[in-house]
């Protein structure tokens, strides 16, 4: 009778987990979709899905990659369902620039937005989500060497952009 009933203790554990990772998940969804509205929808759907499958999560230590995978799949589903058209990157970059007062940050954000997904995603996974290159390789189903190459190229592209910013001294 109660096989499908979870305790509030589980809900609290879930709430704590989601509260802990929500910002990262939103940012990950944003950099995947490059659309703030889509990112919100994706995270919302992903969290609902995560709750429904919460009993599958055996170890809290695995929560982060578990949640992230759900967001990643939900993003793919979203674009499959919506047959989404191209994102207006100029508009998104403009909206981001409003909130960032550092010109280097604005340049980098626009640069990241315009990176190919193959480069953008491993970069986000490493820098933002804190995954090792091996973990990224597992998540993206690539070899670690391929991940390293993509990360290197992603950074290279962004550094070129920064080099064009007058007076910038962060690039090598």
């Amino acid at each position, binding site marked *: 009778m109660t096989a499908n*009933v979870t*305790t*509030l203790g589980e809900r609290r554990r879930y709430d704590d987990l989601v509260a802990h990772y929500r910002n990262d998940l939103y940012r990950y969804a944003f950099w995947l979709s490059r659309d703030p509205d889509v990112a919100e929808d994706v995270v*919302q759907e992903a969290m609902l899905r995560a709750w429904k499958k919460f009993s599958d999560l055996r170890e809290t230590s695995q929560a982060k990659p578990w949640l992230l995978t759900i967001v990643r799949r939900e993003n793919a589903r979203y674009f499959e369902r919506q047959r989404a058209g191209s994102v207006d990157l100029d508009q998104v970059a403009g909206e*981001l620039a409003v909130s960032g007062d550092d010109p280097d940050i604005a340049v980098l*954000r626009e640069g990241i937005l315009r990176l190919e997904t193959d480069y953008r995603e491993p970069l986000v996974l*490493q820098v933002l989500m804190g995954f*090792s290159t091996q973990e990224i390789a597992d998540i993206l189903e690539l070899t670690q060497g391929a991940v390293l190459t993509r990360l*290197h*190229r992603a950074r290279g592209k962004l550094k070129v952009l920064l080099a064009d910013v007058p007076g910038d001294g962060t690039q090598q």
Partner: protein
Amino acid sequence: MNEHTDNSHDKAQDRTAAPAHSDGSGDPAFEALLERALKIPVPERRAEATPASSPARHPLRWLAFAATVLVAAGIWMSAGQPPGMVPVEATAGLSSEFISHVLHEPQALQAGNASVNPADVDRVFEQAGARRTGEIGTVTYLKLCPFRGHDVAHFAVEGIAGPVVVMLLPDEMVSGPVVVREEGFEGTILPLPIGGSMAVAGRPGEDLELIQARLVEAIQWRL
């Protein structure tokens, strides 16, 4: 190089292990900038909301979810208790601890207690992981109590035969309604479809079904 074989989950180690930085992460200033750039502002409601607690962009979906929970709760109540009653022996520990706790706070059982301020009720419920969404009757006793490792709401409402004691037990799961009949109390520990349970007990002759139904309708867990 280390990065090609390193299975460490530590980001810092991963990004600094190889002198050559095959992933291009050898410039700390650039890395700091990159991290700042990726950390875009998160919309306020996103930072605060959880999918189980906020309708966010899909209010109808969450209304439907809430309705499902309420309907399920209603089914529990309308189905009647006897067919699903769990033998007392099966959960004697919980039932006995409930009554022991009740007896340990005799002030809850005093008739004529002043009614508790509704704002205090809401505050204690919140601390106990619950929410009052409707009328629960006149509360004459209220306390946040430690019970089996959790802080739970222990309160009393006015009944026809005196105070009826209630404990909200979001972390206690019972497989069916449990009869409580100890120390001169009669009551039930009701499992709730959304998880957890609610223990209700009063003196013989009390209309517990009415009070239970009212409470089930008026109390939700903080999802």
